[in-house]
C-alpha cells in the first residue's frame, strides 16, 4: 500500500513537471510540442543504445559498458567504408565486422572470465571500451565523419493548421524513429519465433537449466554480442547521420545507464520506454527548468541535462528498484 502510494506521488510529480510549462503559460502549445518531439527523438537514440545493454545483460549477466564504444566503432566503420563503396555494402560489411568483434570478445574476454563477479565483468568491459575507442580511431582516424543516408536534412512543417506557426520536424529524425521501431519489431519476432531466439530466452531465464538441456552457452554469447553489435550499428548510423561520427558518440553509453535503471535491466520494452522518458525529461528540464534555475541560483548557464537523467534514475531506484518493466527480484541489502 505504502509502495503504491510512493509510486503515485512520483508519478504525479513527474506529470506535474511535464505539464507545468503549458499550464503556467511559460510556453506556447506549438513550442511545447516541438520540445516534446525533440525529446522523443533523442529518446529513440538512447533507447537504441540501451537496447544493446539489455540484450547482453539478459543473456550473459554482463553489464556491457562497451556498448557506447561499439556504437562509435560501428559508426566509424560505416562512415569510412562508405567513402570507398556504396552505403549498403558498407553497412553489410560493418555487420560482418561487428559479428567478428563478438567472436573475439567472447573468446578473449568472456570465456576466461566466466563465473566471475558481475563487477569484475563490468570492469572487463571497461577494458574493452578503452581498447575499442583506441582501435577504432587508430584504423579509421579520429576526425568528424559524415554518414549520408540520402535523406533531406531541412525540417518540414507539420500541423500548421492546428498550432500557429506549426511544428518543425526533421525528416531524418522520423527515419530514425522508423528504423528503431523496425528494429524492435524484428528483435521481438526473432525472440518469439525462431529457435535461436527461444534459446536466448531460455538462457536469460536460467542459464544453468538452459545448459543442461543442451543449449551451447558460448555460442549463445557470440550470438547475443553480435545482436548487440548490430543494434549498436543501427544506433551509430542513425546518430552519425544526425550529428556526424565523432568520439563523443562513445559517451552516449553513460546516458544509457539511467535508461536501463529506469526501464529495468532485463526488459526490452523497458529500454524503449525508459529511453523515451529520459529523452523527454532531459529536454524538458533543459528548456523549461534550467532557465528558472539559472535565474534562481545565479548560475553560469544551464546544462542540467548532464545530470538530470541520473537524478531521475535515482528517484526511480528509491521507489521502484526493479525499474518499470524489470523482474521483481533485486539485490537488496
Amino acid at each position, binding site marked *: 500500500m505504502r509502495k503504491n502510494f510512493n509510486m503515485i506521488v512520483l508519478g504525479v510529480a513527474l506529470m506535474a513537471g511535464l505539464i507545468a510549462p503549458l499550464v503556467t503559460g511559460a510556453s506556447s502549445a506549438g513550442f511545447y510540442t516541438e520540445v516534446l518531439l525533440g525529446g522523443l527523438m533523442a529518446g529513440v537514440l538512447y533507447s537504441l543504445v540501451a537496447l544493446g545493454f539489455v540484450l547482453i545483460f539478459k543473456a550473459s549477466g554482463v553489464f556491457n559498458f562497451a556498448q557506447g564504444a561499439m556504437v562509435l566503432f560501428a559508426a566509424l566503420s560505416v562512415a569510412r567504408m562508405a567513402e570507398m563503396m556504396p552505403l549498403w555494402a558498407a553497412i553489410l560489411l560493418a555487420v560482418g565486422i561487428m559479428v567478428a568483434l563478438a567472436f573475439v570478445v567472447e573468446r578473449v574476454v568472456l570465456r576466461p572470465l566466466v563465473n566471475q563477479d558481475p563487477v569484475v565483468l563490468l570492469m572487463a568491459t*571497461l577494458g*574493452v571500451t578503452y581498447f575499442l575507442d583506441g582501435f577504432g580511431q587508430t584504423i579509421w582516424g579520429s576526425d568528424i565523419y559524415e554518414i549520408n543516408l540520402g535523406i533531406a536534412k531541412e525540417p518540414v512543417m507539420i500541423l500548421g493548421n492546428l498550432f500557429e506557426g506549426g511544428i518543425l520536424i526533421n525528416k531524418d529524425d522520423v527515419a530514425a524513429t522508423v528504423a528503431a521501431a523496425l528494429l524492435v519489431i524484428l528483435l521481438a519476432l526473432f525472440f518469439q519465433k525462431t529457435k535461436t531466439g527461444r534459446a536466448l530466452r531460455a538462457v536469460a531465464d536460467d542459464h544453468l537449466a538452459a545448459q543442461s538441456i543442451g543449449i551451447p552457452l558460448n555460442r549463445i554469447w557470440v550470438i547475443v554480442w553480435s545482436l548487440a553489435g548490430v543494434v549498436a550499428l543501427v544506433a551509430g548510423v542513425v546518430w552519425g547521420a544526425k550529428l556526424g561520427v565523432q568520439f563523443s558518440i562513445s559517451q552516449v553509453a*553513460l546516458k544509457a545507464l539511467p535508461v536501463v535503471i529506469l526501464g529495468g535491466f532485463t526488459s526490452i520494452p523497458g529500454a524503449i520506454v525508459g529511453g523515451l522518458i529520459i529523452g523527454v525529461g532531459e529536454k524538458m528540464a533543459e528548456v523549461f527548468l534550467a532557465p528558472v534555475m539559472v535565474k534562481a541560483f545565479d548560475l553560469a548557464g544551464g546544462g542540467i541535462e548532464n545530470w538530470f537523467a541520473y537524478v531521475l534514475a535515482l528517484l526511480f531506484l*528509491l521507489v521502484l528498484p526493479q525499474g518499470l518493466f524489470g523482474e521483481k527480484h533485486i539485490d537488496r541489502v
Partner: protein
Amino acid sequence: MLYRENGQFKTSYRQDQQMLPILQDRIFMGLLLLFVYVGAPFIFSDYFFLSILIPFLILSLAALGLNLLVGYCGQISIGHAAFMSVGAYAAYNLVLRLPQLNFLVVLILAGLIAALVGLLFGIPSLRIRGLYLAVATLAAQFFTDWTFARVKWFTNYAPSGSVSTATIDLFGWHVDSPVRKYLFLLAVVTLFAVLAKNLVRSHIGRAWMAMRDMDVAAEVIGIRPVYAKLTAFGVSSFYVGVAGALWGFVHLGSWEPLAFNITLSLNLLFMIIIGGMGSVLGSFFGAFFIVALPILLNRAPEWIGVDMSTAMVSHLESMIFGSLIVFFLIVEPQGLARLWAIGKEKLRLWPFPH
C-alpha cells in the same frame, strides 16, 4: 637465503600484532624510507619529480581511498573523482575565504567536507548494491562536474570558471620547488598510508571486509551494515578529498572546471584493479603503473625510432590500457600486489619449490 623468518619468535601479543612481523621486511621498509626521504631528493631530476613522482604520490593516495571502499568494503564506485573535486574546491574556498588557516588545517577540513558529500552519496548503498550503486555514484560524478562548472560561488565568480591557487606556506616553509613539493607529499602520503594500513586491520576494516565477503552473514555476526558502509564511504571520501586538494594545490596549481572528470574516476578504478583490490600496497603499484605507462608509451616511439603522431600515440595508449585491464582481470584478478606476495612467498622457500 636472506629472506627467512626462522628464529624470529613472537613472545608477546605486541610482537604478534606488528605491522611488519618479519625482520627483513622491517629492514627493507627502513631502507626504502631512508631512500625516498634522504636519497631521492638528491638523485632525481626536477622533470622526474614533476611528471612522475608528484602525480604518483597524489594518485596513490586517491587510489588508496578508493581501495578502502571498493577493495575492502566491496562497494563499487565509478564516480570517485567527484570527491576529489569536492576536496579541491573545498580547499580552494577555505584558503580564499579564511586565509588565516594553516594549509594543514585546510587539508583536513577539505577532507572532512568531501567525507560529508561522500556520506550523502553513500546513502543509496544502504539499499542497493552492485550495478545500481555504480549508477548512483555516476550521478555524484556528473552532479559535481556540473555544480563546480556552473555555480559561480565555488569558483569565486571567475569568468572562465578556472581557479588558481597560491603557493602553500607551512609555518614559513614555502612548498614551491619540485623537491619541496615531493617531500611534503611524501610526508602526507606516508602518514595516510600507515593510517590506512592500521585501519584495515582494526575492527572497522574487519567489518568492511565482512560486508564485502557476504553482507547477510556479516549482519548475522553482529556487524551493522549502515555503520560499516557509511564509514567506508566517509573514510574513502576523506582520503580522496585530501588527494583532490593536493592534486589541485600541489600538482595542478590552477585547474579548469572539468579537471576532475569521469576519465579520472575510471583511471582511479584501473589503478586499484591493476594494483590489487583490497591491498594498501596495491594502490601504490597501480598508481605508479597508470602514471608511468602513458609517459613510457609517449617516449617509446622515439626510442625505437618510429615517427608517430600524438593522436596515434594516444589511441595506442588507450588500446594498450584496455588490453592490460582485461589481461590483468583474467590472469591475476588480485593485481600486482598479489604478484608481489607470490614473489615473497617463493623467495622464502627458495631454493626449494614448496
